[in-house]
């Protein structure tokens, strides 16, 4: 990704990696709230939460990145963002193991994601930034939601279970 200006981003931690989300897509940050499980949904978006009277899906990027998912603790937050799914603007919440701050990442500090040898799918990563000595992964949220969103488990399988 080529930037001309610094990217204003919210940094957060998933498992042991740092991620950056563009600040302008962040609507709010919540403490953990009760999550309603959606039966037969893909693990990526397994729950629904109530954000100011609005029903919002809760997604876990760790699933997309194949990372280890630990239990939630007092640092866990939900970052409510606006993204596009199939060119439809959608509000979703993403789980964060810890939320840091909003900083500017200099364009010079951002590099292309390497095509091979990386831990995750290259198409999920827009770029890798560096800040104070650590690597920060800039995820391609649109792409992730597009791909993962298509994976809701078909209902027929579960219903077959039920009628037997």
């Amino acid at each position, binding site marked *: 990704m080529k930037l001309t200006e610094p990217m204003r981003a919210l940094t957060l931690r998933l498992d042991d990696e740092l991620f950056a989300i563009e600040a302008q897509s962040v609507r709010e940050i919540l403490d953990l709230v009760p999550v309603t499980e959606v039966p037969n*949904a893909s693990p990526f978006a397994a729950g*629904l939460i109530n954000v100011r*009277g609005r029903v919002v899906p809760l997604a876990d990027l760790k699933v997309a990145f194949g990372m280890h998912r630990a239990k939630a603790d007092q640092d866990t937050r939900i970052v409510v963002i606006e993204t596009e799914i199939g060119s*439809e603007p959608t509000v979703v919440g993403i789980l964060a193991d810890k939320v840091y701050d909003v900083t500017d990442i200099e364009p010079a500090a951002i590099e292309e994601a390497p095509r091979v040898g990386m831990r995750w799918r290259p198409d999920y990563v827009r770029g890798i930034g560096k800040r104070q000595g650590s690597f920060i992964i800039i995820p391609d949220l649109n792409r992730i939601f597009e791909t993962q969103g298509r994976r809701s488990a078909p209902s*027929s399988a579960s219903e077959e279970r039920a009628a037997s």
Partner: protein
Amino acid sequence: MSSDPAETFRQEARELLEQLEQGLLDLEQNPADADLVNSVFRALHTIKGSGAMFGFTDVAAFVHEFETAFDRVRKGHSPVTGELVAIALDAKDHVHTLIEDPQSAIDAGVPILEALRALVEPDRFPAAPMPAAKPAPVAEPAAPAAASRWRIRFHLPSDALLYGTNPVLLLGEIAELGPCEITALTDAVPTLDAIDLEDSYLGWQVDLTHLDPTAALDDVFLFLKDGMDLSIEPLVDAAPTIAQLAAEADEVELHAVTEAVALREPEGERTDRATVTTGTSLRVPAERLDELMDRVGELVIAQARLSQMAAHSADPNLKTVAEELERLSSGLRDTTMGIRMVPIGSLFARFRRLVHDLSRDLDKQIEFITSGEETELDKTMIERLADPLVHLIRNAVDHGLEGAEARVQAGKPVKGTVRLSAVYAGAEVTISVTDDGAGLDAARIRQKAEEQGLLTPDQRLSDQELYQLIFAPGFSTAKEVTSLSGRGVGMDVVKRTIDGLRGKIELSTVPGEGTTATLRLPLTLAIIEGMLVRVGNGRYSIPLSAVEECVELPASADIASRGRSFLDIRGSLVPFLRLREVFAASGEPDGHQKVVIVSSSEGRVGLVVDQIIGNTQTVIKQLSKLHSGLETFSGATILGDGTVALILDTSHLVSYGQAQEQQLGRAA
């Protein structure tokens, strides 16, 4: 209202064109009704005028021609015939295209206009040529060299003041032309006892320095020229001789004010059939209504939370307030729902045109009767009903009604009848489409169903169940595919749409006498009564309108066993689904499982749950794309304690249950 006048015009034009269509269709039934002709004419006139104003010149030009031809009809020179109405309807369609999609339409108008003119008579009614305005009396200009001073004299018509003319403004306009001296002429002013305060008696004389003010004065007296006295003469710059003064004195005549305002008899406003009812109504963008609905929904949720808190509290004041709030929010909900309610008549009106066209295309005479136009439905529901009803009407006309010969042979009137009605029935609206045609042929349906593998020859079905097969995808008993119907694409879409509206559709028939399709729809969409149940650790809402009854799961069925899962409900077998398994719930099931029997147009299924919690008002929230693919759920809602609960799509569950049962039936 849109802030773009062109867009407002388009909206307005759409309404006017609809009115126009209804008027033309009415006119076909009542060709001698002069009021109808007038209202058609008025609609055309308005579209033409506004069209020209907002740059829709093609529209204005076409409508002008249309109007001219229709003017002959209005003046009684040409009769109203079915032919005329048909062409007029084509012309109306063309105007619609010109407004919505101008690129595609321009040449199509010419043949329509020609047909219209040919009908209405070859020699067109000549458009009144614009006559030249009568020139104001102007005296011969004197020798050019000296003509730079002019004497302007005028008396206004006696009613000028009454009719809003302000002489001061006129004089001001003249004064702008150049340096001048103004004198009032009082010779026409009567004695005090004869003065009528509203009349104009004064005249004025203005001596103006100007090259030639004739043209400019034309403009000043634009509205008054024909009724006033005006003289414009060049002044010679010499001192007037006494002779000249005397001559001038003679020219000033006393005008007897004799113009009586001839008040015509008012023509007696008759109420036309197709008049726009301009009551005090307001045009509101649809998005605002949706927003309002959202707010009310949120209020209902918050109030439910408060009620819950009050229930757990010992504070009597809190309880009282919570009750009051419940009453108020319920009232607000009802009122807001009411705003979204629109009479179904608007939809019915569209169908008249459809039936008219079908009648011509299929060469069948059809009587189309509607009732219950004032029955109100949620606005979004009405829009979604349009297509299904079109299909049903088409089917009735195309397949239901027999041709003229067959009808006569059967002893029926040549004119077939299609009846469309809407009526309230409790918390539902019942819409039915009835025809007096040949009725459904059960044997043929059966045959077709077996051919398509939907039935086995020995399978026994009730008539109702047999007719429901018509809604299966691809099913069609039409011997030939006409361009209108018969491809079997229609009925399954109809059913899906009705299911999507949480409604039911049924068919009933009497062979040889006719068929009726009945739609039953719940009255509101966005906020419904839901039955809250618990399955494992999760809570789910089931739309109450789909719930038939609740029973306990008998111990005998409680043992998980292979093979059919059926309950015997008063003699009929109802399949059941264990939701714990559908949802892969963890933990141990509750001791006494409950079964909620839900129904859809396809049949019934029992949903086995751990616990039935109670009924609540459920504000329906749509699911995002991440979850909308899950057919088991039709939406989500927020409960009184702030958590999210999913709403079950009972139609889907019933379909699934039925399909399962059939598969198992085949396997057994």
